């Protein structure tokens, strides 16, 4: 190898590394999802240890913290049960902040492999997730590359996020977030969709798997959440969030819901902190106007659901009503 070539090669590789570093840092700083998630963390950090309700989950989690008193909506986009576990562990073990209740999302899609295999926004999650542990539980060493991706190549494959970050840059300045809740899904009305059944079918096939209804790793982490809450005496209430009738119909064609929830319940009931499941999935079957898309409530829907949830949570504390509420 000639000296000139060696110098040029080293220079090229150095430029590759530097540009990668710059892109990585720029993405971490300006990615709209990172901004949102970091703001969530900031807002939660302001809390002292007097929180009553901590709602965790993904974008289905639409708990309106204006309505549910003393609550925090710590749900983040595409969050899986695996990620929820690590975030909860950080809160309870490292930060030693103990809410009275955890409102845990338990939709059908929460337990499938599609959710478990999502690693979007890894650059945010690397501070929570123990990838070594995750790789062992999933029995998949490729999981370790997610750590490398999150640390050094956060922008890799994330062109959609880059696009969103540019488009929503202006909106981020006026971002309204109250105790984690963002009332942002008000610009679409699913009732007006041209073909609701087809849209529901498209969505269901993207996020659900015919082959596996209860992912193995998710099962392990679900139980870990239960154990974690048991160890810290945090009560758990599971919530199945509302969805459109069209989406529910498509879900049931793919996943044996009764079988799935039978297994989920069997695990949950082993722990005394488990208070029960509020099943709201069919609450608004006749109200597509309350939905943003097949499986997300819009702002109005979120408000109505939270009012209902607040009432049910209050009734939960009444021993006479609790028995009727949560069989």
């Amino acid at each position: 190898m000639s000296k000139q070539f060696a110098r040029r090669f080293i220079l090229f590789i150095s430029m590759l590394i530097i540009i990668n570093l710059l892109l990585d840092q720029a993405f971490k700083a300006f990615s709209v999802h990172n901004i949102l998630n970091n703001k969530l963390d900031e807002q939660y950090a302001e809390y002292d240890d007097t929180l009553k309700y901590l709602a965790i989950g993904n974008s289905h989690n639409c708990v309106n913290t204006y309505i549910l008193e003393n609550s925090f909506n710590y749900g983040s986009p595409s969050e899986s049960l695996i990620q929820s576990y690590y975030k909860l562990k950080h809160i309870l073990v490292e930060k030693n902040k103990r809410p009275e209740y955890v409102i845990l999302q338990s939709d059908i899609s929460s337990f499938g492999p599609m959710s478990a295999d999502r690693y979007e926004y890894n650059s945010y999650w690397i501070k929570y997730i123990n990838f070594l542990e995750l790789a062992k539980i999933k029995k998949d060493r490729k999981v370790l590359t997610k750590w490398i991706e999150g640390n050094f190549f956060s922008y890799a494959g994330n062109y959609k996020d880059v696009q969103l970050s540019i488009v929503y840059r202006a909106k981020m300045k006026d971002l309204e977030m109250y105790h984690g809740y963002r009332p942002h899904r008000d610009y679409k009305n699913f009732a007006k969709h041209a073909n609701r059944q087809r849209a529901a079918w498209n969505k269901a096939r993207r996020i659900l798997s015919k082959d596996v209804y209860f992912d193995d790793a998710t099962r392990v982490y679900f139980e870990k959440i239960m154990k974690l809450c048991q160890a810290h005496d945090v009560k758990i209430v599971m919530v199945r969030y509302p969805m459109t009738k069209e989406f529910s119909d498509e879900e049931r064609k793919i996943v044996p819901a009764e079988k799935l929830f039978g297994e989920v319940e069997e695990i949950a009931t082993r722990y005394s902190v488990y208070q029960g499941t509020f099943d709201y999935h069919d609450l608004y079957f006749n109200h597509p106007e309350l939905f943003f898309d097949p499986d997300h409530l819009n702002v109005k829907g979120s408000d109505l659901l939270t009012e209902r949830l607040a009432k049910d949570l209050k009734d939960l504390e009444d021993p006479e009503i609790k028995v009727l509420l949560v069989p």
Partner: protein
Amino acid sequence: MLFNSLEYLIFLPVVVILYFSIPDKWKWVLLLLASYIFYMFWKVEYVALIMFTTLVDYFIGIKLAQKMPKKRKKAYLALSIIVNLGMLAGFKYLNFFSESLNGVLDFFNAGISTPVFNILLPVGISFYIFQSLSYTIDVYRGIAPAEKHLGKFALYVSFFPQLVAGPIERSTSLIPQIAKPRAFDEQRLVSGLKLMIWGLFKKMVIADRLSMFVDYVYNNPQQNAGVPIILATILFAFQLYCDFSGYTDIARGSARIMGYDLMINFNRPFIAKSLRDFWNRWHISLTTWFRDYLLYSLPYIKNNKIIYPLFHLNLFITYLIMGLWHGASWTFVLFGAINGLMVALEIMTQNLRNRFYTFTHISRYESLKNLIGTLATFSIIVFSLYFFRANSLSDSFVLIRNTFDFSTMREAFYFMRQDNELIFGILMVIGLLVAEHLHAKYNLVSNLASKPIFIRWSVYLGFIFFVILFGVLHAQKFIYFQF
């Protein structure tokens, strides 16, 4: 270990650095070890199969090179063929034949059935077995000398860049390169890396992106009709091309860095003006293998004259078997049969078509004639891909039937317009075709190499980060790994 994985990104530089650090006489040892380690990443036990194939064909090769009666030579060759194809049949086709036979027995209410086993297909078995078999056949025919060095022969069979999905290299090409390793070459390093990046672009940005839409349609045949099916099948042609040629580029690039030249496996197949032209441009190492070791081995000459009907039949049989090579399923058999039939018909109707072109004066316009040929070829190939891609025979028929249902066209366009990945994938396909055309016309790579370093490096760096940003990162297997 996939080529588009972080593991390979670490594995290759380590092997390359070690390769050029050790004396020439030990290079084959390092590469052989690296190749076996590479293969063991898939499944450790299956490396025993590759070693078995290697040993059998090594000793048979030595025997075939010795002076002996022709009958005995034939027996040794037959042994190599039986062992190699026997292994392939056992791992790949046993259940297929068993299930097919059970279907027939069920139809006749025979009341008996043949067993079906749970066998995992060893990755790359179709490729390395064919490669090893080509060696013994060439030695038998006197085209290639027998390799006396077991280690170097073992490396020929298991050379990691082309081990799991080709190109299927001939011994006359690869073994001499193994025998005389090249010194480090700066130009080869740079051109090898460029080829690899181009391969990663085709695989990660185009193929894996198109697969989302193609899988969506082909995994739900009943729910799709009309334009989405046609579009998915057309895009599958490009997905398959980008996936496989992308893999080949990475394989060739990896080998080139170390000083090895692997054969070109694809040569702009979508500009083919006839089916024969297409199959001379697509998966060239496989089609030439079947041509040299099957087609021309079948009888078609009598009294020094070519018996054309027999030759056409042989063509059909060759393509049928080539279809079956791709997978143990009736869909692949049909894929092969369609291509075989159409190639034979193409030859048989050559004169008729020439008369038609003359009669209609199309023959005066070479470009128009070529365009008709290209479109007709592409249409036939796309039609055969219905069977190649479909998950089952019944699915393929549902898809073909639903293709002609345009009742939901408006709705289909509505959903497709909203699919950004699909639109982006189509734009990238157009970009690829334009780039390949420009490269063929103006030799873009050489053109760029003559530009100032600032421009060259801007293009290279820009392209690398484009691939990283827009690539589908969840490392998807290469399609041809399943064969």
